[in-house]
């Protein structure tokens, strides 16, 4: 084990592990250094030369991503000398980069844009008429678009397909300033994590076809949530926005770093699962297909419960938050119903891989196991009350609480989806994680907890 030692950065003392990377320390303490090619998940490549710092005793500026922390080290991360170095390198970077921020999707989350604002390069001395031109709209596959002219050749995306997915679809080909990111002819980007390269790309060279031009990023709000695609429980941001006169809408999911779960990444299925979230939502309360008042629906359910005493099953969906499951167990107890949380629908061995994706395709799968809930098909079939489990069961009467349309039930209650509600989930490794509510609809559907409150009255 390396020892913890002290080093000085800009006159301040910091503690760090000996031989750890200087850039990690700078990032951790939010000491500003510009950088493109380094990424904590991919390691140092040293190609962008942007992360230059001064190290006392060294003649030349050094790149922080390839500098190991040593005892007694003294670092200057800013100052006129180092700023000039960075400005000049940045200026060269911009030579062949179209400064088309107004039409670039990445505007607002582009390192290049940030850095050149920081270093006052709005009026670049380089008057560019003879830029090297490259292809502007290359469809790489997997919803990822490449603009070769915007690319700064940091090799983050190619290192991702080499080191993380081992699928090797992307590579920098050619030499010198003809070098460019490419796939092999006829072999598109096609791995289940491909869209992470869009997040990794420090500039606007890689964009998501799915998200391109839908929204300017600075309008978006982010909520810290958990993906419900499977029991891995990847941490995500739900980026959403409520444009004027319209409803609050989810625009994308983005990975949120959690080293204990998903690191920096999420799978594409999880990322794109936001779409299904908004489509075909169950918004009305229905009795035999006809809309009814919620109060009347509640009375109706209570009457059904009376009528089927002793012959009731409550079905719990394994995606519900733990708080909801617990409340439903109490509810089942009060109405003396049997409880089951079938998992059949959520077992998918084909979904699993050795990166993130789990064969247990429900977010709270582990809770169901921990709580020792029955996972059998219901055998009390007087009344079935199904809380959002997607499979249909036959019974004398079926009542269903649903986020989405499609239930076959005589009485249907609409419920808030997970993005409209918060709660706890236990992932496959037993880690409890809290998912925050992101979206507030103009006319929100009640949550399960709210319905249960009403049923008590």
């Amino acid at each position, binding site marked *: 084990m390396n020892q913890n030692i002290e080093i000085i950065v800009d006159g301040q003392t910091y503690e760090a592990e000996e031989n750890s990377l200087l850039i990690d320390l700078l990032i951790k303490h939010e000491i500003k250094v510009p950088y493109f090619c380094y990424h904590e998940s991919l390691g140092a490549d040293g*190609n962008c*030369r942007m992360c230059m710092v001064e190290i006392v005793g060294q003649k*030349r500026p050094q790149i922080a991503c390839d500098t190991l922390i040593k005892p007694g080290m003294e670092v200057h991360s800013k100052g006129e000398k180092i700023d000039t170095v960075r400005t000049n390198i940045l200026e*060269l970077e911009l030579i062949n980069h179209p400064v088309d921020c107004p039409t670039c999707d990445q505007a607002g989350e582009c390192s290049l844009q940030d850095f050149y604002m920081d270093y006052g390069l709005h009026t670049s001395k*380089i008057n560019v008429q*003879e830029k*090297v031109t490259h292809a502007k709209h290359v469809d790489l596959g997997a919803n990822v678009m490449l603009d070769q002219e915007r690319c700064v050749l940091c090799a983050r995306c190619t290192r991702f397909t080499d080191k993380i997915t081992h699928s090797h679809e992307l590579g920098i080909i050619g030499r*010198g300033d*003809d070098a460019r990111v490419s796939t092999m002819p006829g072999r598109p980007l096609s791995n289940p994590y491909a869209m992470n390269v869009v997040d990794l790309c420090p500039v606007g060279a890689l964009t998501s076809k799915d998200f391109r031009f839908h929204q300017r990023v600075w309008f978006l709000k982010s909520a810290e949530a958990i993906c419900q695609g499977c029991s891995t429980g990847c941490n995500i941001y739900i980026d959403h926005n409520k444009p004027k006169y319209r409803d609050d809408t989810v625009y994308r999911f983005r990975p949120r770093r959690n080293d204990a779960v998903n690191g920096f990444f999420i799978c594409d299925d999880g990322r794109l699962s936001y779409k299904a979230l908004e489509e075909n939502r169950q918004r009305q309360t229905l009795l035999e297909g006809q809309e009814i008042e919620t109060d009347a629906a509640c009375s109706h359910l209570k009457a059904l419960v009376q009528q089927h005493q002793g012959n009731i099953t409550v079905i719990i969906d394994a995606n519900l938050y733990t708080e909801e499951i617990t409340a439903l167990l109490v509810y089942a107890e009060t109405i003396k119903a049997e409880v089951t949380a079938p998992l059949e629908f959520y077992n998918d061995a084909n979904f699993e891989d050795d990166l993130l994706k789990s064969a247990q395709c429900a977010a709270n799968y582990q809770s169901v196991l921990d709580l020792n809930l029955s996972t059998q098909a219901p055998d009390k079939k007087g009344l079935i009350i199904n809380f959002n489990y997607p499979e249909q069961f036959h019974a004398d009467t079926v009542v269903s609480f649903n986020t989405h349309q499609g239930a076959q039930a005589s009485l249907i209650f609409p419920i808030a989806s997970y993005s409209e509600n918060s709660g706890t989930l236990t992932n496959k490794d037993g880690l409890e994680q809290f998912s925050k509510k992101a979206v507030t609809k103009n006319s929100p559907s009640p949550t399960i907890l709210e319905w249960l409150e009403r049923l008590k009255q």
Partner: protein
Amino acid sequence: MMRTCQIVSQKFAIEDAHTLSIAQEHGAYDTLAKCQEFTPLEMIQIIKESGLRGKGGGGAPAGAKWALMPQDSEQSSVLVVNCDESEPGTFKDRQIITKDPHLLIEGILLTCYAIKAQDAYVYIRGEYFQFQKVLQRAIDEAEEAGFLKNINITLHRGAGAYICGEKSALLESLEGKRGHPRLKPKQPEPEWYFGQPTLVNNVETIASVPFIIQNGAEAYRAFGTEKSPGTLLFAMSGHVQNPGVYEAEFGVSMMDYINHYGGGIKNGKALKAVIPGGASTGVITAKEAEEVTLDYEALRSMGSALGTGGMIVMDESTCMVSVLKNLLEFYHEESCGQCTPCREGTGWANTLLGKILNKRGSSADINQLLEIADTMNGKTICVFAPAVSSVIVSFLTGFRDEFEVMV
């Protein structure tokens, strides 16, 4: 004045010296028996004492590099001989592998003995295939004659990339990858080939070893200067009467060399400038050329470098702006493209110079060239970019007026 010295070129004039029988008639492989008198460490000591300096351009002391090689490593050590020879103005290693390939093989065997290597690779630029064949034939002959019992010598053909002459890029290429120079190690250590400790030396460096082992360190030091001992296959091209490769000792006067071996400037014209040691050394003016001697220290003191000793000679009619343009086209073509200042800087400098050459430039462009040169200096992965930087600066220092009249 010009003492004849033939340390590496002793058999160049002998007909068919590339064949084993003729080479052996003239002493090839005699040192193999002699080296058994020494332990590997003693061999390294002799090389150290000889002051032999790397002849691939950098002039690093060979002995110190050899001493970095582990003597008791679990992984076997590797010798890599650099015959990429792509530095414009340089065509010396080619003479060795075609005129006296057995000298190189002998040097390889001695070096492998000293660093305890079993595998040696010679990385040859792809264009030299016709010369590679000569070397291969010599290796085959040496193998048949039983000289290569303990050592494999494998020729590895490059495929057109100047940067593969840089040692770490060369090793990447030898590993089957793109020729991208590696990040520099934090402390002195050997090079690494697939994780095995590796020594990289130039062809001529290795070809100098048999002489030193045969005659001793002092015999080598009898040539050259205190700090630049021995000889080099200096070369001349461009505007000289008799271009070519002629071995000379370090420390001779540049003009003596050019006049003696090169027969002076072509067509009786006056000298204007010399690029002293391959295209990545800074240009010097005729006046400086009159004063300088051919050794590392003298050229360094002029702000240039000895490099490979391949002099490119230019007469009074030469337009220095178009010479720099020509060189920048080369650098632009040959930058590996890995790091930003070099990838973008070489292209941009070339564009700017094109503007100046087409009389569309301004004095601001000249200043900007210097700024780009500054950004390329000392901030990149390998020393390609700093070399380009120093070349730009040397042209704008020595011949600024020629640039200024164009803008």
